[in-house]
């Protein structure tokens, strides 16, 4: 398992291709709508499409920020690495620790909803009917994915690619048939006007909508394993951003304006609109896309058979992305002395960070126990009802998911601004549009206006989360505080600065990053920029 001290240190292999890079991102963020749609429809009701639109605009800003950063710094750290370089070690730790919360939640949340989708075809798996069976199946899935990831990334990537391609085709078909044969714009307008939620519900719905857009982190996570990342990542990211935005907006608009193929009635026999099945029955919230697909004319007869299966598989892949992502973040944080070196160890046989994978899978299992407890034990259920508004397992996981995402993305925007100011010499093959040129410390820099708007947007979603999520505002900050305490102990043990950053040689590190990524032209450009900058400074001094 561990490596000997005199042997060369094993590195993560570069086996992820352009389609692999897209499918890692798609399988994670693309699956989010399968989880988010039902939750948002349940809370934001007639304003669900507005909630998705607001979260979607913020998501586009996040996507552009990640695209620029991952293409400029193609390392396996993702958000925490960018924040560490832009703002310092302790902020890098906070951002990374928040992302780790998200990825461990991702493992549990998506395994959970994978079982929910399966329950559409196998009713024995419905959580409210057989909670113990539901719990045991989710537990088995998480443990199985842990094992798969210890074995290696190549196998997982190929699997992701096939399912992602099938899902893009499937979702396009569902939306085509839905918008052509079942969508009524007048019904959409009527629903929005008659069922507009209260401000509290809209805030809650918007904070849940952001969970439909979490996962671009996966692309930057895979950056260290992607071939020619500076060229490939911008290409895959832009397509991914637009695809996900469209699917989220399309599903929410379709759900609100859908004329169901088969009449839907409540228990008293009164006709209902399609979206009303979500606030009425919590079991429906975990399988919204399958229920919507079944209501699409003509194609729905076929879709009802395969969408639950495809959804379950896609969600399982997304859960797998959580295992993959958390282990890679921990690997990178460990490399930067933000976590103990234990998490940096790469298995010699499989060349995967096996200890990280097992550790964070174990945390995902603990989260599963917290989420499943109200359904499994009536005593816990009454405790949740008394103190946490009676949130169910899915809402518990969604709360923490929204908190982790909003926290880490807020720091990423600040990190992007910091890096534009502190590191203007690194070549940026992709740069977010709309910048204000200025001079900072003798260098010409481009101040990113989009990052400011993105920060305001995501920070407001973080405030919505803290205001409206009874569990998220307790467990989320608790996770951060416990992590910070452990971080300070670790840094003290290693005799490293506690609140300040350790000394970094960013110049050499950036050169090495670009060399390892195979981006030799960018490396030459970077070295040339450094020489020109040094000459300017020397001329200024003389």
């Amino acid at each position: 398992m561990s490596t000997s001290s005199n042997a060369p240190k094993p590195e993560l292999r570069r086996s992820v291709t352009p389609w692999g890079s897209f499918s890692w991102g798609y399988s994670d963020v693309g699956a989010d709508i399968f989880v988010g749609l039902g939750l948002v429809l349940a809370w934001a009701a007639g304003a669900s499409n507005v909630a998705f639109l607001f979260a979607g605009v913020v998501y586009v800003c996040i996507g552009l920020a990640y695209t620029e950063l991952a293409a400029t710094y193609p390392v396996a750290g993702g958000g925490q690495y960018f924040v560490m370089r832009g703002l310092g070690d302790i902020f890098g730790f906070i951002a990374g620790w928040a992302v780790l919360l998200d990825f461990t939640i991702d493992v549990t949340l998506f395994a959970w909803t994978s079982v929910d989708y399966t329950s559409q075809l196998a009713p024995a798996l419905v959580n409210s009917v057989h909670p113990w069976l539901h719990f045991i199946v989710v537990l088995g899935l998480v443990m199985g994915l842990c094992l798969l990831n210890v074995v290696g990334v190549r196998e997982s990537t190929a699997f992701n690619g096939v399912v992602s391609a099938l899902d893009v085709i499937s979702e396009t078909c569902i939306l085509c048939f839905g918008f052509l044969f079942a969508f009524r714009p007048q019904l959409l307008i009527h629903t929005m006007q008659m069922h507009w939620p209260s401000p509290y519900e809209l805030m809650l719905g918007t904070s849940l909508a952001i969970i439909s857009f979490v996962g671009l982190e996966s692309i930057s996570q895979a950056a260290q394993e992607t071939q020619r990342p500076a060229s490939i990542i911008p290409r895959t990211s832009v397509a991914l951003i637009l695809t996900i935005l469209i699917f989220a907006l399309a599903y929410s608009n379709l759900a609100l304006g859908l004329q169901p193929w088969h009449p839907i009635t409540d228990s008293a026999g009164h006709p209902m609109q399609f979206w009303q099945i979500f606030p009425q029955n919590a079991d429906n919230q975990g399988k919204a896309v399958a229920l919507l697909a079944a209501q699409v004319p003509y194609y729905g007869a076929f879709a009802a058979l395969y969408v639950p299966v495809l959804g379950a598989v896609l969600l399982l892949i997304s859960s797998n992305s959580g295992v993959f992502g958390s282990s890679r973040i921990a690997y990178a944080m460990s490399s930067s002395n933000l976590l103990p070196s234990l998490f940096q160890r790469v298995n010699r046989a499989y060349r995967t960070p096996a200890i990280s994978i097992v550790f964070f899978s174990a945390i995902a299992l603990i989260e599963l126990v917290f989420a499943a407890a109200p359904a499994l034990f009536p005593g816990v259920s009454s405790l949740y009802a008394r103190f946490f508004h009676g949130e169910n397992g899915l809402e518990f996981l969604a709360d923490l998911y929204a908190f982790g995402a909003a926290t880490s993305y807020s720091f990423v925007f600040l990190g992007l601004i910091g890096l534009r100011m502190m590191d203007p010499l690194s070549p940026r093959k992709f740069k977010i549009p709309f910048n204000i040129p200025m001079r900072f410390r003798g260098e010409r820099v481009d101040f990113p206006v989009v990052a400011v708007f993105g920060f305001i947007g995501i920070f407001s979603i973080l405030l919505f989360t803290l205001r409206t999520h009874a569990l998220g505002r307790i467990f989320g900050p608790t996770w951060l505080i416990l992590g910070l305490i452990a971080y300070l102990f670790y840094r003290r043990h290693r005799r490293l600065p506690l609140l300040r950053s350790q000394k970094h040689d960013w110049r050499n590190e950036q050169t090495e990053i670009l060399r390892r990524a195979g981006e030799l032209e960018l490396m030459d450009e970077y070295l040339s920029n450094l020489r020109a900058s040094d000459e300017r400074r020397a001329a200024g001094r003389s």
Partner: protein
Amino acid sequence: MLFVRGVLAGAMILLGIVILVRMLAVVPAGGFAVVPGVVLGVAMIALGVHRLKLIARVRGMQ
């Protein structure tokens, strides 16, 4: 594979146009409420065009 991608991109553009036209038709009754639908239509057309451009570039390289 390129053919399938091209068909998907074409379908996306057509669907975007259909949604845009239908949403614009209810502007007098809907007002602000049409905005998410209009954004959806425009985004679909943009993605379809983006994909077709990429496909054309790949075909040009072959």
